């Protein structure tokens, strides 16, 4: 990734969306992913007779946490300090990066291992560390794929969903050696084999790296306990094995009491991966088992969001990604079009508030929706995303937003004619497209990353030919 974590300087949503629409592999992967997770989520939510009560409680707890955030943060600070941990406060991205860099410097280490954290992506920590000569190794399988492929994540939960197995095999074979243990000879594209390759590649690093960097899903004010949910075990590796642990956590992650976890440990796994519970959850308070522990509390625009009466509900978000998986716009354009680490409906309301709407991209985000309301229905903390979208539209600088944005969702959803034409056109001019770079308006966006080659036959043509348009 050569740009900053905030993907600045990207063109507006419609331009990105247009490009994404022409990528049939992406659209195929996305549709498969979102529909699969959607189905799993529905089944496990159905299992709980008190889902709506849990959802109401989740909303109330978060509202209370935000309303009294100053008090809860101080309480957490006191509890963590008492338990031997250190608490740092960062008002913006630059300050957070500076704090983390300083803490790593103090250990004398130049390598750190990371467990997926949206907060550190938001502040561009990896790039900041790189400038200071510190290498940050991503350890989630998906983040590893993204890092090795010099790519951007496209989904909160499955960041590499835009990559299929043969692409992943290629990325592993070509790039693992640059980062450590090379991929085994003759690697196949079987998912089991690919996961084993990742296990081997990272094992030695887990056992020898002395500094870990994480985020957290929750911070309990009452006890100072941090909570991290994960699947693969790389989180546990990063949290427990290093001598020093640094966690960068947005101030809105606070829950007032220990008891509140009984609500969120039911809401989050079921909404997120569609499981009754995720494989691993780690909870720790202060310096644990002889480890040095630092918590960096991050504002970076959150207090600005908090000041907006309607917009502040976005801070209730627990990053489950359920809203992405039901969004008809996200399903068609994917995560990259949103130009931020927060894609989909939540990105459309959070990014313009965190960053302001000065850029064309950010001003166009509130229009990246058809206001169908599916996101609100699935949101485990009942964020009324359509309400916030409409509110932000009223605040967006009007002229450019109208020109670029009003039709953003329409552009995407006004199928099939336009979509078909765009894809056909892209296929027809295949020979003219400079290898793996898009011309015209897409160029600014593609300048920093490779673009998959345009397929010889568009997805739609292929579909019509093989399925005779039957079924969906």
């Amino acid at each position, binding site marked *: 990734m050569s740009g900053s974590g905030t993907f600045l300087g990207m063109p507006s949503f419609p331009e990105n969306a247009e490009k994404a629409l022409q990528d049939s592999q992406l659209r195929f992967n996305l549709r*498969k*992913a979102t529909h699969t997770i959607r189905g799993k989520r529905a089944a496990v939510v159905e299992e709980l007779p*008190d889902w709506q009560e849990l959802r*109401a*409680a989740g*909303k*109330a*707890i978060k509202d*209370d946490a935000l*309303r*009294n*955030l*100053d008090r809860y*943060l101080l309480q957490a600070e006191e509890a963590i300090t008492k338990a031997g941990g250190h608490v740092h*406060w960062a008002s913006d991205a630059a300050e957070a990066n500076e704090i983390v860099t300083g803490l790593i410097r103090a250990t004398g280490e130049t390598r750190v291992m990371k467990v997926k954290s949206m907060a550190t992506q938001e502040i561009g920590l990896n790039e900041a560390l790189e400038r200071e000569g510190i290498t940050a190794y991503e*350890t*989630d*399988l*998906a983040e590893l794929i993204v890092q090795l492929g010099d790519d951007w994540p496209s989904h909160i939960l*499955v960041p590499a*969903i835009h990559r299929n197995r043969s692409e*992943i095999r290629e990325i592993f074979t070509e790039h693992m050696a640059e980062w450590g243990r090379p991929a085994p000879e003759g690697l196949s594209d079987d998912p*089991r084999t*690919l*996961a084993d390759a990742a*296990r081997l590649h*990272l*094992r030695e690093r*887990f*056992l020898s790296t002395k500094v870990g960097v994480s985020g957290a899903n929750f911070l*309990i004010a009452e*006890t100072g*306990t941090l909570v991290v949910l994960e*699947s*693969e*075990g*790389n989180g*546990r*590796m990063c949290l*427990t094995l290093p001598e020093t642990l640094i966690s960068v956590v947005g101030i809105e992650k606070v829950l007032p009491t*220990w*008891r509140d976890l*009984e*609500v969120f*440990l039911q809401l989050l796994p079921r909404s997120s991966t569609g499981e*009754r*519970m995720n*494989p*691993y*959850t*780690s*909870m*720790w*308070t202060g310096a644990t*088992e002889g480890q040095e522990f630092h918590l960096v*509390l991050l504002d970076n625009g959150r*207090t*600005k969001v*908090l000041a907006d009466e309607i917009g*502040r509900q976005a801070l209730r978000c627990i990053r489950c990604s359920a809203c992405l998986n039901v969004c008809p716009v996200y399903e068609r354009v994917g995560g990259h079009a949103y130009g931020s680490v927060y894609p989909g409906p939540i990105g459309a309301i959070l990014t313009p508030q965190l960053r302001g709407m000065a850029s064309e991209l950010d001003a166009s985000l509130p229009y990246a929706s058809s206001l169908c309301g599916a996101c609100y229905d699935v949101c485990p903390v009942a964020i009324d995303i359509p309400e916030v979208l409409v509110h932000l539209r009223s605040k967006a600088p009007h002229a450019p937003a109208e020109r670029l944005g009003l039709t953003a969702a329409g552009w995407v959803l006004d199928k099939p004619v336009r979509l078909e034409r765009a894809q056909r056109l892209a296929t027809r001019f295949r020979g003219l497209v400079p290898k793996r770079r898009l011309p015209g308006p897409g160029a600014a966006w593609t300048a920093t990353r490779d673009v998959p080659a345009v397929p010889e036959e568009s997805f739609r043509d292929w579909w019509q030919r093989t399925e005779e348009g039957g079924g969906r």
Partner: protein
Amino acid sequence: MSSRDLILARIRSAVAGAPQTDVEEARGYRTSPAPGEESGRVELFAERVRDYRAIVHVVPEEEVADTVARALSGRNAGRLVIPDGLPEEWLGAVPATLERLRDDPPLAAADLDAADGVITGCAAGIAETGTIVLSAGPGQGRRALTLVPDYHLCVVRADQVVPGVPEAISRLDPVRPLTWISGPSATSDIELNRVEGVHGPRTLEVVIAISGPR
């Protein structure tokens, strides 16, 4: 002004005058099992742990030792990490040749990596979600012991199994390091195919011990 004071001041001015929420009033969800649910608790736990593709045995207490011995010999596990405070009777039937790795002085990560597996007890089991909770207490050891070895054998006493998440939260001590385990480690990052066993133990085997007459 320090960043701490700056952030706190920003928060205070942002929320000034905003209404308060009554959280207790909003807790309308279940915090104890419905009548009748209680009886099937252990069976539900076993079924839900199996759903994660873990190996599960439900046995009377006096058969734990034999079950443990069979599980270990089935895997050819010759070098086993044994945390302090593990009930000695659970190992009553293992062969004398079993190499017992004690964590005192603490085993290096490389030693854990070279072990064939680890056996532990637990702090609680949760029936509804098929979850085992470890609290680094006696018979469980520090967190790395159940993370680095490729095989985790866990003994759960039936009286440790609670119906749901709220009951578990009320019985756990947040000051202790806690690890909630629901099946072996897994990923769905490659085309959403679930693959068990990435960085944590690739095999989880659970022995549920029933006391008294079944």
